[in-house]
């Protein structure tokens, strides 16, 4: 990538995934990116927003704090990635063996177990100096999503952010914004109510009670809930009464009667979907892909690709992506966007459940998919949580997977799309710790995919107890 090659494409769709993202966010296909995998950005957006009563300290787990390494496979040679610690050398060699150009690696000065990468970077004078040099050379910071914390990092490093202002990004990530946008666009929407005060919540609960009386279920979701969290499900009136009581009690104690939740009638879901598109600074929108989302208890577990959709549903998804993308652009947003949708058991499609105007887990699979994986393969990207007695080197994982480790020439197998989360728990502990394997399971068909998943699961059990 050189300055001479810099150009503005006729069509965003003519670029590969990262190239399109680069152009969309910087307006130039030659701008070097400094990638930051601040997966915890939603916690920052949620700060100060009164949602459901919450307990816990809100800090990410050691595993989540090491999801920063997902960004490694998004960058090209010539880009950079900020990481909390150096990747396993065997893992880097493996990625290179796939034919991937990799970004330069910029390490934070320290790596503390539960400290988000943005915070670690902000407290790293050595790193900040290096980032300033990259900024002077024309690079731009492309975080997973932008909050005030990343803006502060960018200011400290004199490295401009390649995304819109944090306040814009936060606003369009609110579930209240998403529901109102869907209503404005006339997109099919689950029955529900947006609540910005305790009083509005009380009114919504009155109406939701009628749904419960008719045998339905409702969900109360934080407008700024962290993925899969900040949700309370009510299948009987008593649950809503309990929530109202908790919310009222807090409002009386603090004098703050604001609230940021949505109350939604639970749709009878058959399949979760996640689709991805990219909004450019010039307002153009590129539809990237749609995948089936695998969830357990509302928490993201992975993706399956290709999504098994009817042509009509695919058209509706792509049409909604264009409409939502143009609306986001009109509201000042540009960058990557993932949208959650569902196919209901009656065959209908609700194409806009939640807007995630940031990178999504699927964003980090896109370049691998383009470069290394046969276009007609069935790909299931999954996480495997294991209680590990001690650290695991990538070489050991490769040994245990054996012939199942993905090789492009074979075209099938398990491709680790991140590795730092495996040993995240051993940063400040020597005893057994939780580790997470991220694997893309690649097979020529669903049957082979299921067999591969079973065999990989059995082999990973050699490392410890699977969660």
């Amino acid at each position, binding site marked *: 990538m050189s300055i001479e090659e810099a150009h503005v494409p006729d069509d965003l769709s003519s670029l590969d995934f990262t190239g399109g993202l680069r152009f969309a966010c910087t307006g130039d296909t030659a701008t070097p990116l400094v990638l930051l995998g601040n997966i915890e950005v939603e916690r920052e957006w949620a700060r100060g927003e009164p949602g459901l*009563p919450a*307990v816990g300290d809100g800090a990410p787990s050691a595993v989540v704090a090491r999801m920063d390494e997902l960004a490694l496979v998004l960058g090209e040679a010539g880009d950079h990635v900020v990481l909390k610690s150096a990747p396993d050398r065997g893992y880097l060699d493996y990625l290179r063996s796939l034919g991937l150009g990799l970004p330069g690696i910029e390490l934070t000065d320290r790596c503390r177990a539960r400290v988000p990468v943005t915070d670690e970077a902000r407290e790293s004078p050595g790193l900040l100096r290096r980032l300033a040099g990259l900024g002077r050379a024309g690079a731009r910071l492309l975080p997973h999503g932008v909050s005030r914390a990343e803006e502060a990092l960018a200011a400290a490093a004199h490295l401009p952010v390649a995304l819109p202002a944090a306040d814009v990004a936060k606003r369009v990530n609110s579930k209240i914004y998403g529901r109102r946008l869907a209503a404005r666009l006339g997109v099919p929407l689950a029955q529900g109510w947006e609540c910005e005060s305790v009083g509005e919540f009380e009114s919504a609960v009155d109406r939701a009670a009628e749904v419960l009386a008719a045998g339905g279920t409702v969900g109360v979701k934080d407008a700024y809930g962290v993925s899969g969290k900040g949700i309370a499900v009510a299948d009987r009136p008593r649950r809503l009464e309990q929530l109202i009581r908790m919310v009222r009690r807090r409002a009386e104690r603090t004098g703050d009667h604001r609230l940021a939740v949505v109350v939604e009638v639970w749709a009878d879901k058959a399949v979760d979907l996640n689709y991805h598109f990219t909004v450019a600074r010039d307002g153009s929108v590129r539809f990237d892909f749609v995948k089936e989302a695998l969830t357990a208890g509302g928490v993201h577990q992975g993706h399956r690709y290709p999504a098994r959709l009817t042509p009509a549903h695919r058209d509706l998804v792509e049409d909604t992506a264009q409409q939502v993308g143009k609306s986001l652009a009109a509201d000042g947003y540009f960058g990557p966007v993932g949208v959650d949708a569902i196919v209901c058991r009656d065959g209908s499609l609700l194409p806009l459940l939640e807007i995630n105007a940031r990178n999504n887990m699927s964003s980090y699979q896109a370049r691998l998919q383009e470069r290394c994986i046969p276009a007609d393969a069935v790909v299931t990207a999954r996480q495997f949580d294991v209680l590990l007695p001690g650290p695991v080197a990538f070489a050991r994982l490769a040994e245990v997977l054996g012939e199942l480790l993905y090789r492009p020439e074979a075209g099938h197998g398990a491709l680790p799309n991140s590795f730092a989360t495996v040993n995240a728990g051993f940063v400040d502990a020597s005893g057994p710790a939780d580790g997470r394997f991220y694997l893309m399971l690649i097979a020529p068909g669903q049957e082979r995919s299921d067999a591969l998943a079973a065999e990989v699961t059995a082999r990973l059990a050699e490392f410890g107890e699977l969660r």
Partner: protein
Amino acid sequence: MTAPAGDLQALVIKSLESVLNTDLSNAGAGTKLFEELGLDSTSVLELLMTLEDDHGIEVDPEQLEPENLETVAAVCAFISASTAGD
């Protein structure tokens, strides 16, 4: 409500089973709620509501500190302390 320590632990584990929809017959006083059982802020809220529904144990979530949720024993200790005067 005051329950003997062993009974209270059984009630808490039963409520956790209901919230997490899983068999916790191997869980005990030292079982870690977040690390081992995968509890999160959402399921904590459900746990509190289930304790109230099924066993009449009422706890204000805003009074809970993270350390009160570390283990089954910590939850039991918190409930015992907060309901001691009932």
